[in-house]
């Protein structure tokens, strides 16, 4: 009797496993190649988002927020990625950005969301979208002065202030800070004009002794943060605090600190979060991270576009905030 039970269980188990595997195989084909239009839901709105294809997790969170809100607004979200070095001659957008914008424009979408790198000129985008009666919502890390009508942005100035506040809380007037800023896509955009840098400066101006020893830009590559941090520490070994503009810089700086065996000697205040940043915080390598709410930016952008489309909102400028992780006073 026992062999029969064993073989029967094995047979039924194998059948169930087989059905599950084959079903997954068929689902894989059904979801990629054999899609049936009748089985796919039709949304009320069509929103196109043109986003940099950057490695920083900020953009991942941004797209998550876009999708979340699009789902809530019954909108089909179409994300077009352009390469991070999207700035063409002068301050003109690259041809790639233009193509996606044109496609979105001619497809008669219900809203176009464009992430605007520092220095990119977007006046023509706004004008064409307006002439086509399509809501246009630009996104930016910091709201540029050229935004006159609509846009959703973060606040790097406040972020810098918060980061330096944390450092000053730990080191006081002995703070000798190094700052890692994002890749320079503005072609000549001065370091001192960066909102983050300005925020730090604003914070330390009343604290004699505390100073910014160095500021560098990270390259737009996987190891850009490490390279920037290594360069900065090599040139300024007296740095005892490093402030990072994004997650990539944070992870790179932490790696350099670990490699050099100076964990605890150099305070790292990072930005944003992902699993690696969170792990570094838990390990104590990174003291804290100023998490910009990229998902909120995405949600706000979609809601603003759809709101304008159906006429319940007017163009407006929205600034999303940040939060500190771990919260002040909390143990990592």
């Amino acid at each position, binding site marked *: *009797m026992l062999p029969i039970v064993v073989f*029967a269980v*094995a047979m039924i188990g194998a059948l169930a496993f*087989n059905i599950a595997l*084959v079903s997954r195989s068929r689902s*894989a084909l059904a979801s*990629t190649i054999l899609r049936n239009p009748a089985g796919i*839901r039709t949304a009320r709105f069509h929103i196109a988002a043109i986003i940099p294809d950057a490695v920083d997790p900020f953009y991942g969170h941004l797209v998550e927020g876009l999708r979340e809100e699009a789902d809530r607004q019954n909108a089909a979200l179409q994300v077009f990625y352009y390469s991070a070095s999207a700035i063409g001659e002068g301050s003109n957008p690259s041809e790639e950005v233009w193509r996606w914008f044109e496609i979105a424009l*001619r497809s008669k979408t219900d809203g176009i969301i464009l992430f605007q790198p520092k220095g990119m000129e977007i006046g023509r985008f706004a004008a064409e979208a307006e002439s086509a009666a399509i809501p246009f919502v630009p996104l930016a890390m910091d709201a540029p002065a050229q935004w006159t009508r609509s846009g959703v942005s973060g606040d790097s100035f406040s972020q810098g202030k918060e980061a330096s506040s944390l450092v000053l809380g730990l080191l006081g007037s002995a703070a000798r800070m190094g700052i890692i800023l994002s890749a320079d896509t503005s072609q000549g955009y001065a370091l001192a004009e960066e909102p983050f840098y300005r925020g730090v400066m604003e914070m330390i101006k009343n604290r004699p002794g505390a100073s910014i020893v160095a500021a560098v830009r990270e390259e737009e590559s996987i190891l850009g943060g490490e390279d920037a941090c290594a360069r900065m520490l090599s040139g300024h070994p007296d740095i005892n605090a490093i402030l990072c503009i994004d997650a990539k810089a944070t992870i790179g700086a932490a790696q350099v600190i670990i490699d050099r065996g100076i964990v605890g000697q150099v305070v790292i205040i990072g930005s944003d979060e992902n699993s690696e940043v969170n792990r570094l915080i838990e390990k104590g390598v990174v003291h804290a991270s100023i998490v910009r709410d990229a998902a909120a930016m995405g949600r706000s952008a979609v809601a603003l576009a759809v709101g304008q489309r159906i006429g319940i909102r007017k163009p407006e400028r929205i600034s999303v905030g940040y939060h500190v992780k771990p919260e002040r006073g909390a143990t990592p």
Partner: protein
Amino acid sequence: MIDLVSLARPWKPKRQGSLRNRIIVNSIIILLVLVIATSYTAFASFDLARSVELLFRNSISMEELRATLRETQESLTGYLSAKNSESLKDFIRTSTSLSNMELKLNKENKLDDVFLLEKDLAFLVDSYLVSAEGAVQAKRGRNVTQYVSLYEEARQTASLIEFLSTKMDTIHLGQSLKGFSSYKANISLALVSNAVLLLAAFLLSIALIARYSYTITEPLARLSVAAEAVGRGEYDHPLPPYENEDEIRTLHDAFVNMQDSIQKAFAELTRKAELERSLMEERMRVLTYQHRLKDAELLALQTQINPHFLYNTLSAGWQLALAEGNEKTAEFLEKLAAFIRYALKPSTRFVLVSEEIECVRQYIWLLKLRFGERYRFRIEVQDEALGNETPALVLQPLVENAIAHGLRDIEDGGDVIVSARMEGETIRLSVSDSGKGMAKDDILRALSAADPEDTTPQRGIGLHNVVRRVALATGGLGKVEIESEPGHGTRITIVLPVGKPI
């Protein structure tokens, strides 16, 4: 008769086919599992084939769209630059094809990246056709500024279509590759699970076959052993209980019932045999009583005709007559005494026919002394008959009857003939008279005495006596025949077998 049906256990039809049903159901389940697995794999293969076909079809469709777009753009350029009718015809033909292609593309806000790209492409093609047709119309209207502007717009849109369709190809391929990779990863495991499934199904089938073989043959083997034991006469050979509700149970129960029935049948037969033996013994006892009764009856009959004391008295009379010198009386008494001595001997004895004839002669002498010449007697004897045996004292009663009943009321007397002769293997002793004859009922009543069980009251004791004694003495081989007609006399014949009587 033994009621075997009542001895049998209640019939349970539900057992019929239960074992067979289990075998069939198990086989069907295994086959069903294999069919399901095979079907799923077949569906997956079918999906794969469709996917590959669709991939190629999409790729070709995109390529055809690009080729048609290029042809349209070339014919547009040709027409705008040369304004010849051939270019216009080409433009109309290709733009129509392009429009038809555009109609097949998705235009809804589907929650799917590829379908949204299709929508983008559809609107781009639509936009291109509007610009291109506008340019043609402007050319016809000789509005140079407009057709140059629209042509430029169409060219840019065509560029976007090329860009987007190429992107879509890439996306298609990327998604297809992702789908195929996932399919391959899963289907490789599915093939392994298929192998496990087949192996498990094979082993399960073997295990089930072994189990059912054991289930069927083991109790049958026990039944076989029990049947052999029953064959040897061990009707109470114990059969282990069988718990399952199936055909074997039916067979098992039937065999146990048969054992019970056989044992009960044997018990019944034994009881009957005992009863029959008792009945036989009782019958033997009754026969013995009957035999003794016959002996007593014979003795009684003998006593009836031959009172013993007569002989002694007559002997005394004969001596007295001699003493007184009365010779005639002495002769009478001598013959009477001789006759009585003959008659006093056991009537069951056998005597020679000559002795019996001699007895009759003495009796006739006595009758003549009494009746004178009123009756005429004749004795006809074959010498061959004289040496044979006959029950004693069978002729004298017949002669006595002939005188007493046949000739008594006839005034001039009559004739009496006694004969003894051989006829084949029989001796025929007869007494005939010329008297008044016998009624048929009297004849039948007299002959019924041959039956030992007969109790019919008799008027003529002598004839009845003779008929009964001939039958008893010869064990039924001898018989008495009576031929008579009223007014024409009677002949009574004793037919005896030759040789020693039974």
